[in-house]
C-alpha cells in the first residue's frame, strides 16, 4: 500500500510539473502577443469616447502589476491558476472564473460524453472487426474510419446544421431553447439541455470514434497473432470467450492510455464545432475572446483549463491502469515502485 501511495505521489508530481511547463509556455506566448492588457483596456475605453494619455496607461499597468518582472508575474498567475483563480478578463473586467463558471463545466461534460460514446462504439466494433476475417467488413470499417479524418467534425457539423435549417426549419443550434436560455437550472431546463446536447456530442464523437476504432482494431490484431492466443486456442477456447478473456484484456492498457490524446483531439475540434453550432461554451468563448477582443487573459485561462483537464485525465488513467492491470499492479505494489 505504501508503494501504491508512492506511485500515486510520483504521478501527481509529474502531472503538476507538466502543468507548470504548459503554463509557462502558454504564459510566455500570451506575453509575446503585441500589446498588453492595460493598453488593450484603455484602447477599448478610448473607443467609448474617453481620451487617455500615456500616464493613464502606465498607472493602469502599475495597478494590474504589469510593471513587475516576467517571472514574478508568471508565478503569481500560476499560483492563482492552480486554485482556479485567473484574475480579471482584460476587457470585460469581470472575474474570469465567474465568466467561465458553468460554461466550462458544460463543455467539458459534452467532451467527456463524446469520448464515452466514441469508446462505447469503438471497442465492440473494433474487436469484432479485428476478429472477423471478412474482407468486406474490414474494408468498410477502414473506409469509415478514414472518413472520420477526411470528413472532419466541422464539416459534418456544417452539413447537419444546413440540412436541419433547410428541412426542419429549426437550426438546432445553441444548447438551450429560447425559454430556458437565462432561466436557472431546473429539471425542465436539464431535459431541454439533453434534448439538444446529443448533437454536439454526436458530432464531436464522430472523428473520435473513427480514431478509436482504428486503435482498437490495430491493437487487437497485434495481440491476436501472439503465441498465448494460439495456446489458448489449442486448449479449445474459441469465439467470444477467447477474445474477451485474453487479447481484449491485453489491449486494454494501451486503449486506456490513449484516452488522454483522444480528449486532446476532441478539445481541438471543440471551438470550431462550437462556432458552427453557436454553442455558448468555452470553445466559442475562446474564439470570441480572441477574434473579437484580443483578450489574452481569458484565452490563457481557457487553454490552461483545457490542458489541466487532459493532464487530470491522464493522471486518473495512469492510476486506474495500475489498479486494473495485474502486471502493472504487481510492479507498483511489489516493491519496485
Amino acid at each position, binding site marked *: 500500500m505504501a508503494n501504491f501511495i508512492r506511485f500515486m505521489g510520483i504521478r501527481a508530481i509529474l502531472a503538476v510539473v507538466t502543468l507548470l511547463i504548459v503554463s509557462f509556455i502558454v504564459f510566455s506566448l500570451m506575453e509575446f502577443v503585441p500589446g498588453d492588457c492595460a493598453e488593450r483596456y484603455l484602447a477599448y475605453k478610448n473607443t467609448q469616447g474617453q481620451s487617455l494619455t500615456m500616464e493613464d496607461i502606465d498607472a493602469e499597468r502599475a495597478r494590474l502589476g504589469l510593471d513587475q518582472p516576467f517571472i514574478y508575474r508568471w508565478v503569481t498567475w500560476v499560483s492563482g491558476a492552480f486554485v482556479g483563480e485567473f484574475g480579471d478578463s482584460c476587457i470585460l473586467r469581470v472575474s474570469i472564473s465567474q465568466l467561465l463558471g458553468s460554461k466550462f463545466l458544460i463543455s467539458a461534460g459534452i467532451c467527456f460524453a463524446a469520448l464515452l460514446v466514441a469508446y462505447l462504439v469503438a471497442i465492440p466494433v473494433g474487436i469484432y472487426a479485428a476478429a472477423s476475417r471478412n474482407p468486406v467488413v474490414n474494408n468498410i470499417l477502414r473506409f469509415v474510419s478514414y472518413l472520420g479524418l477526411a470528413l*472532419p467534425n466541422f464539416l459534418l457539423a456544417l452539413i447537419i446544421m444546413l440540412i436541419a435549417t433547410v428541412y426542419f426549419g429549426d437550426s438546432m443550434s445553441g444548447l438551450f431553447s429560447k425559454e430556458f436560455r437565462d432561466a436557472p437550472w431546473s429539471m425542465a431546463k436539464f431535459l431541454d439541455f439533453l434534448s439538444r446536447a446529443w448533437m454536439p456530442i454526436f458530432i464531436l464523437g464522430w472523428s473520435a470514434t473513427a480514431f478509436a476504432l482504428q486503435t482498437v482494431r490495430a491493437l487487437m490484431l497485434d495481440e491476436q497473432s501472439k503465441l498465448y492466443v494460439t495456446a489458448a486456442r489449442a486448449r479449445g477456447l474459441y469465439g467470444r470467450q477467447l477474445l474477451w478473456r485474453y487479447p481484449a484484456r491485453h489491449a486494454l492498457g494501451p486503449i486506456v492510455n490513449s484516452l488522454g490524446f483522444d480528449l486532446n483531439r476532441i478539445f481541438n475540434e471543440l471551438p470550431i464545432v462550437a462556432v458552427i453550432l453557436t454553442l455558448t461554451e468555452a470553445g466559442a468563448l475562446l474564439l470570441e475572446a480572441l477574434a473579437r477582443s484580443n483578450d489574452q487573459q481569458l484565452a490563457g485561462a481557457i487553454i490552461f483549463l483545457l490542458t489541466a483537464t487532459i493532464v487530470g485525465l491522464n493522471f486518473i488513467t495512469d492510476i486506474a491502469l495500475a489498479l486494473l492491470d495485474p502486471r502493472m499492479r504487481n510492479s507498483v505494489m511489489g516493491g519496485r515502485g
Partner: protein
Amino acid sequence: MQTVTQKSKEAYFTASQGQLIWSRFRKQKAAMIAGFILVTLILLGVFADFVGPYNPTISGANKDYTNGAPQMPMFCDHNGCSARPFIYGVKRERSFATNFRWVSTIDTEDRRYVQWFVKGDDYKWFGVTFNRHLFGVEGGTIHLFGTDDTGKDIFSRTLHAIKTSLAVGTMGVVISFVLALVIGGIAGYYGGVIDGVLQMITDAIRTVPAIPLFMALAAFVPDTWSAEMRFFFISIILGLIGWPTLARRVRTHLLVERTQDYVLAAQLSGAGSGHIIRRHLLPSFTSYIIVDLVISFPYMVLSETALSFIGLGLKDPVTSLGVLLQNTTNADVLLNYQWYFIPVLFFVALVMAFVFVGDGLRDAADPYSEAKK
C-alpha cells in the same frame, strides 16, 4: 523455369530499399488508386494557372455570370451530335417580363465549342508571363463548377485552393520536420538525462490542445498584414503544431536502430561510424521518415482548413480550401447554389488520398509486413 525463379530471387535479394518498398506498395490496390488520385490532384494544383481557365481572384471574375450554375460540356443535344464538346451560351437580361431583375437564361440554340490551348488571363511562371490555358470556349466563358456570388470561377478557384493548401502543408511539414529532427535527434542521440528532460517537455507540449492555442496566436495577427505574410505565419504555426509527434518518432527510430544487431554486425566487420550512418542507419530510417511526413500531411491540410474556416487563417484574395469551405456556411447555398460544395469533395478526396497513400507506404516500408501475414 528454374532460372526464372532464380532470377526473381536474385532480383529480390539485390533490390534497393526503394525498389522493395515500391514492389510492396504496388500490390496494394487501394493505396495505388489513392496514389493515382493524389498525383492527379497535386498536378492539377501545381499547374492550376494553366489548367484553370480564369484568374481565381476578383480580377478574373465574370460579372455577367454571378452565382452561375456549372456548365458541363456535352456532345449531343436536340440539334444532333458533334465531336467537339460544347456548352450553351447564356443570355442575361432584365426587362418588364422579369420584373426588372437580372435573369440569366440558357440559349440552347447558341452552341459554344470548347477550344484547347486558348489565350486568356496572364499568369507568371518563373518570372515569365504566359497567357495560354488548357481549355476555354470561343466568344464566351466556361465555368465547369459554376461561379460564386462575385462571378469568380469555382473550378479555377478549386485548383488554386489545392495549390495553396498543399503549399501551406508543405511548408508546415518542412518546419515541423526540421524541429523534430533537431529535437528528436538530440534526445535520441544523447539519451540519458537530456533525453528524459526533452521527453518531458515534448510530452507537456503534446498535452496542450494545439488548435485552441494556435487560434489564440492567429487571432493576434494584425489586419494590416498582407496575404503573403499571413500565409507564412499560418505555415509556421502549422509547423509548430506538428513537431512533437514527429520528434517522438525520430527519437524512437534512433534509439531502436542504434542498438540493432545489424549495426553491431557492421561494427564487428570493421565499418567506421560514418559508413554505418550512411550505408545502414540512414537508409533504414529515411523510409520511415518519409512515411511519417506523408502521414502528417493531411493533418496540416486539415488544420489550415479549420483555421481558415473560422476566419483566423488565410483570407481572400488568397484562395485555399478553408477559404472556399467558408463560403458554404449559409443555408442559401444549400438551397440554391449547391455547386459551392464542389470544393468540399476535392478537400475530402485530397485528405482521403493522403491517408490511404500514407497507410500504404507505412505497410510497404515495414520489412516485416509480409512476415506478419
